[in-house]
């Protein structure tokens, strides 16, 4: 019993310090990677034969789209752990990841439609991939609003965890249903042509940007989770010691 308690109470406290040490590393790494990624995007990668320069949006669009999906899954994993083992830290991690995930989701939608306008002549079409990305965005917003609406942090953690898990089970269902819905209709919709076989440099650029986004996400999530820990634990002695030091 006492061991569990010790574990429960000390985890956020020790993690607070640990996270503080990790943040600068990831932040610097991500700045370097972003710089390198942007350099490749604009100066190394050649112009696309079909799409001209507009295709360069791919270097932000695709990493953002990937991130938005990964982050949701990671959030759900944290939530599952939190519900199963009643660890507060994992719920806080899920909560810290959500806004960044929603942000990348938004960026994917935004850059996608700024790509679509010159390519398809429309800001938005009801393509399967686009639609499911939009729904993913709604799932993020649902998670965030639910947590924001609940005052009591314990209840917010557990309610959020539940909806994240329900959502992640539904994501594949949604994805396939949307896909089927779209392909069955076909009709006048503009077919989504995959980019031509990508040059190695393009792939490299996308990958570097994706890793940059990952390190950015890690740094930001750690930063946010520290704030959350501090808010939650403000009445404990270790928190006030930190506050004393921070002043």
């Amino acid at each position, binding site marked *: 019993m006492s061991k569990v308690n010790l574990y429960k109470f000390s985890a956020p406290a020790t993690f607070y310090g640990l996270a503080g040490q990790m943040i600068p590393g990831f932040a610097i790494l991500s700045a370097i990677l972003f710089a390198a990624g942007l350099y490749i995007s604009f100066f190394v990668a050649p112009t696309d034969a079909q799409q001209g320069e*507009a295709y*360069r949006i791919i270097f932000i669009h695709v990493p953002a789209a990937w991130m938005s999906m990964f982050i949701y899954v990671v959030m759900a994993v944290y939530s599952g752990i939190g519900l199963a083992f009643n660890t507060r830290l994992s719920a806080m991690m899920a909560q810290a990841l959500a806004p960044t995930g929603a942000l990348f989701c938004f*960026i994917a939608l935004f*850059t996608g439609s*700024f790509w679509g306008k010159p390519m398809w002549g429309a800001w938005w079409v009801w393509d399967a991939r686009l639609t499911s990305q939009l729904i993913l965005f709604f799932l993020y917003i649902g998670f965030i609003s639910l947590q924001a609406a609940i005052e009591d942090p314990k209840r917010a953690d557990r309610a959020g965890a539940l909806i994240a898990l329900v959502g992640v089970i539904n994501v594949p269902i949604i994805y396939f249903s949307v896909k089927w819905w779209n392909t069955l209709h076909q009709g006048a919709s503009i077919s989504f042509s995959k980019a031509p076989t990508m040059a190695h440099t393009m792939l490299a650029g996308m990958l570097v940007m994706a890793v940059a986004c990952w390190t950015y996400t890690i740094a930001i999530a750690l930063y946010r989770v520290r*704030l959350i820990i*501090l808010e939650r634990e403000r009445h404990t002695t270790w928190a006030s010691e930190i*506050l004393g030091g921070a002043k």
Partner: protein
Amino acid sequence: MNWGSFSAFIHMGGYAFYVWSSFGVSFALLGMEIWLLSKRRRTLLKRLGQIQRLNASKGSR
């Protein structure tokens, strides 16, 4: 090097608006996230400091 001149770089083969909007807004959003977080940290520390001073003065009374 892909670009003959700086203005060609800015012009982006006629897609300047779309490309620069995408990158600009994306990085602006990331920057805003960082800014909002640091603001949140400042206000939090200030508030906690107040609470603590209050407690300290209560304790000494």
